[in-house]
């Protein structure tokens, strides 16, 4: 008998035996682990910060937060979080706990990041636990062929290379511990300094990326999703992609597991051709990754319009970003609601233990508006049976008011402007209602085009007009034609792709990687996302999408009726436009940046966060954009990118995150780096100038994107290319040659050849002097040859 006993680096015990005789019997190939498994056959050396606790990377955060100082814009000058309060924090006053407005503002930033991380992490935990239940703890994780560095974020942060669901679960243990600590810091009388609240927000953002990566890795591995596939299938999207002849099931949310049971049940019982399943928000992406025949109805802002259209025979909700009044809205159009997630039971009765046919009967008869079910198998059966029975019944029921009815009701408008005042985008709702008095529904249809679907206008209307339904009716001719093609989520970026583009990205010859992520809280519709992506893809940036933004970009078609996904390849390469998948697939974007450091620069990833973040910040021209950022999840996703040193741009509604991270290009002392080759302190240009920035409009987004792609490490050729784009976009949208170009010129060779005369003139005017091009680092210990030292 061979017995091995090992204490892992985490000092947890593991016993392996090829044969073990016990009082219970004789066992072969026994492996017992006390604690969690740690990979001890991985030869990459462990870095300095495996599984960092809340303050282990604090000094890195402080470096970033000193350069990119938070600029707070409090939404409230009071604190009402404890019974000491309310406390007035105006004019330098402190609350009863001692916190001032700066600290309180930072505390709110941390609270948002905690909430966002918790949503992803709970999703991830459910996914992993469920898959362990279904497939067993040793089920192997994979991101597909061409990916050897699987789970790069997890490797970087935890030092663990998760190969099985069991190991993924151990990673989540770490994440949950960290979240508990960062959440506790928000409690009254804990953290007191803005910079440490901010550092903790960065920490939980980093943890969030790990949680997202594990969630997507688990579902990709177990559910047959595309695995790092640049040619993931094109799938049909839009409201009109749903077939009204079939029983329609609408799945809303982010957790695909319940929907897979619905699709499986329909297939197994031979009724798949009788139903059509479509999704809203990230569940849409993941049902399409599970089965390319599933439909993508649209982004989060479309949930109310689709429910109001009355097409859905059953509405299934899982978790995150669901309208919390969905039951009320669905009830109006006689669509039963099935709640499937413990996070969002929606006040519905738990009928998990009841007979399926009894549940279906109660739903179909209208006796109950919906049910909460905890059993996935039962969810599949109930949903399919209910949808098929509801379909013929609901066909006879009208859902939207007629045009004549709208005209009649509109006559009583009080012209109080409350609908406009409630609209986040100040849309002319009242003017549209007044036009409807004359039978002209055109203005209501125009409001629909830019509507984010919040229905605050309805809540505010003293006449209780169902204004959103009016808009949907007015625009009926438009959305009934709404069909477009999108590319299913491909998952991670292949190592082989990184090998091709790593060098040109780091040298700046591929001028940047743009990541469009997040929600659909757009200031004026979603066209800006498409036009931005198209322009930067033309300029040979790599443009990556995820989440709702990935749907919106597909809605715009060219003259031939093709979407951007049909026009551009899905590889991770210059000029491509790719979709990694749902919200949790955001982790693959961070993963790609991390893998550049590993594959191109041969840096160790394992537990080596600070060095890799420093590398990315100084070398990889990545820019995150969330034009319609809405949620706390978007906040935590952004926080994860901040800690990696990647700048994030949000649309104007992003100001409501109430804090920017702004650099000061005019302060030379803020832009000092160590030259890793010489150990010298060297001043570099302000690149990236900001770490978190809300743009006012599309035009500013265009210019800011090009500017934030600049990095200290750009080669002369790379810098020249990046400056060409910045100058061209600045001249186009701002109308003049930018005045700061001389600050980005280090040597003559940085100057774009066609712009030499103008730039030389600016250099002369500003008494330009040649500057060194360092091997830049913010971390002194990373200076080669022992010339570095402590901070």
């Amino acid at each position, binding site marked *: 008998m061979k017995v091995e006993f090992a204490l892992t680096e985490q000092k947890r015990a593991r016993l392996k035996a090829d044969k073990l005789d016990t009082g219970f019997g004789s066992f072969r190939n026994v492996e017992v682990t006390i604690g969690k498994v740690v990979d001890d056959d991985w030869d990459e050396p462990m870095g300095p910060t495996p599984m960092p606790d809340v303050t282990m990377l604090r000094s890195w955060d402080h470096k970033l937060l000193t350069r990119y100082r938070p600029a707070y814009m409090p939404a*409230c000058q009071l604190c009402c979080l404890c019974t000491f309060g309310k406390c007035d924090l105006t004019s330098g006053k402190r609350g009863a706990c001692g916190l001032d407005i700066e600290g309180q503002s930072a505390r709110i930033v941390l609270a948002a990041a905690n909430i966002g991380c918790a949503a992803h992490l709970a999703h991830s935990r459910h996914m992993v636990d469920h898959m362990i239940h279904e497939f067993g703890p040793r089920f192997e994780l994979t991101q597909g062929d061409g990916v050897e560095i699987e789970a790069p974020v997890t490797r970087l942060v935890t030092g663990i290379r998760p190969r099985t669901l069991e190991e993924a679960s151990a990673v989540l243990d770490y994440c949950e511990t960290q979240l508990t600590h960062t959440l506790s810091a928000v409690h009254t009388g804990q953290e007191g300094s803005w910079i440490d609240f901010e550092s903790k927000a960065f920490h939980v953002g980093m943890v969030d990326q790990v949680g997202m990566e594990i969630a997507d890795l688990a579902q990709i591995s177990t559910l047959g999703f595309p695995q790092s596939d640049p040619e993931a299938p094109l799938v049909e999207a839009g409201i009109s992609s749903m077939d009204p002849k079939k029983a329609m099931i609408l799945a809303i949310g982010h957790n695909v597991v319940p929907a897979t049971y619905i699709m499986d049940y329909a297939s197994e019982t031979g009724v798949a051709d009788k139903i059509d399943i479509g999704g809203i928000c990230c569940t849409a992406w993941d049902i399409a990754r599970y089965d390319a025949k599933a439909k993508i109805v649209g982004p989060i802002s479309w949930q109310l319009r689709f429910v109001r259209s009355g097409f859905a025979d059953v509405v299934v909700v899982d978790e995150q970003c669901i309208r919390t009044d969905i039951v009320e809205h669905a009830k109006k159009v006689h669509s039963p609601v099935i709640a499937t997630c413990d996070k969002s039971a929606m006040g519905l009765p738990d009928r998990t233990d009841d007979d399926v046919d009894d549940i279906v009967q109660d739903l179909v008869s209208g006796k109950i508006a919906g049910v909460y079910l905890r059993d996935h198998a039962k969810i599949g059966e109930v949903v399919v049976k209910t949808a098929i029975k509801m379909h013929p019944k609901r066909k006879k029921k009208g859902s939207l008011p007629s045009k004549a009815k709208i005209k009649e009701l509109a006559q009583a408008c009080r012209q109080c402007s409350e609908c406009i005042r409630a609209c986040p985008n100040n849309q002319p709702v009242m003017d549209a209602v007044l036009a409807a008095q004359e039978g002209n529904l055109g203005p209501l249809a125009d409001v629909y085009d830019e509507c984010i679907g919040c229905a605050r206008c309805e809540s505010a209307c003293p006449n209780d007009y169902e204004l959103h339904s009016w808009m949907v009716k007015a625009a009926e001719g438009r959305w009934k034609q709404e069909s477009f093609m999108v590319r299913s989520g491909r998952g991670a970026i292949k190592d082989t792709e990184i090998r091709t583009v790593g060098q040109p990205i780091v040298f700046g010859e591929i001028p940047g990687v743009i990541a469009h992520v997040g929600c659909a809280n757009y200031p004026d519709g979603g066209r800006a996302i498409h036009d931005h992506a198209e322009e930067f893809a033309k300029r040979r940036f790599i443009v990556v999408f995820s989440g709702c933004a990935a749907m919106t970009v597909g809605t715009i078609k060219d003259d031939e009726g093709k979407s951007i996904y049909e026009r551009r390849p899905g590889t991770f390469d210059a000029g491509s436009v790719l979709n990694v998948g749902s919200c949790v697939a955001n982790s693959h974007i961070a993963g790609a940046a991390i893998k550049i450091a590993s594959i191109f620069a041969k840096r160790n990833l394992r537990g080596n966060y600070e060095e890799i973040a420093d590398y990315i910040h100084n070398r990889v021209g990545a820019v995150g954009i969330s034009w319609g950022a809405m949620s706390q999840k978007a906040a935590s996703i952004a926080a994860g990118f901040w800690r990696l040193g990647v700048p994030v741009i949000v649309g104007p509604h992003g100001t409501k995150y109430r804090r920017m991270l702004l650099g000061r290009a005019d302060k030379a002392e803020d832009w000092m780096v160590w030259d890793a080759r010489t150990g010298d302190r060297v001043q570099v240009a302000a690149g990236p100038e900001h770490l978190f920035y809300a743009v006012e409009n599309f035009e500013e987004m265009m210019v800011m994107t090009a500017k934030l792609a600049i990095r200290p490490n750009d080669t002369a050729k790379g810098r020249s290319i990046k400056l060409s784009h910045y100058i061209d976009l600045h001249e186009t949208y701002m109308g003049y040659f930018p005045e700061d170009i001389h600050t980005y010129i280090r040597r003559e060779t940085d100057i774009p050849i066609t712009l030499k005369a103008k730039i030389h003139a600016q250099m002369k005017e500003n008494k330009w002097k040649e500057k060194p091009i360092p091997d830049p680092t913010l971390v002194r210990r990373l200076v080669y040859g022992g010339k570095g030292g402590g901070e």
Partner: protein
Amino acid sequence: MMRAEPWQSAEVCGPTKAQGIKKTAVVGALIKKAKYPLLVVGAQALTEKTRKKSMIDYFIEFSTTHNIPIVATANTIKAFKEKGFDNAYSYGAMEITGRLQDHEWKVAPKKGPHDLVMTFGFPYYMEWLMLSALINFSPHIKTVTLGRYYQPHATWSFPNLKKQNWNDALKEILTPVGGAK
């Protein structure tokens, strides 16, 4: 004249609240008293008009009359440049909000630090937050909003005005108190 209450109903603020401008002479007096006033103009100025005049033309006249430099945010700068106006400086809305929290910062040599900032042309919620930053972190600066809608985080703001009343108010504040500076 409507009431001095937030235009977007939910945008209520804390214990301090902007004083409603009932007489436009208040704006003139604030400009006269200020050492280094600054006008911050956002992109809604590109589409908004007062009577038949574009807001860009209006602010060029306003700036020239009162000798106040302009910060034009986003692509607003393009419109000023195209009209040959050279007292406009380009900053993003968030950048200028950040810079004004630096008590030493000035838009140009000998033109600051600023003690009065007037704003126009931003989405309501965005201006609301920009002004919140200034009221909390730039106590040395008084702020005046020149838009139609009441902004509670300003020091002074028009109450929610009907378009005609707002047009009249804008016309009145073009005339300097006690002559041009």
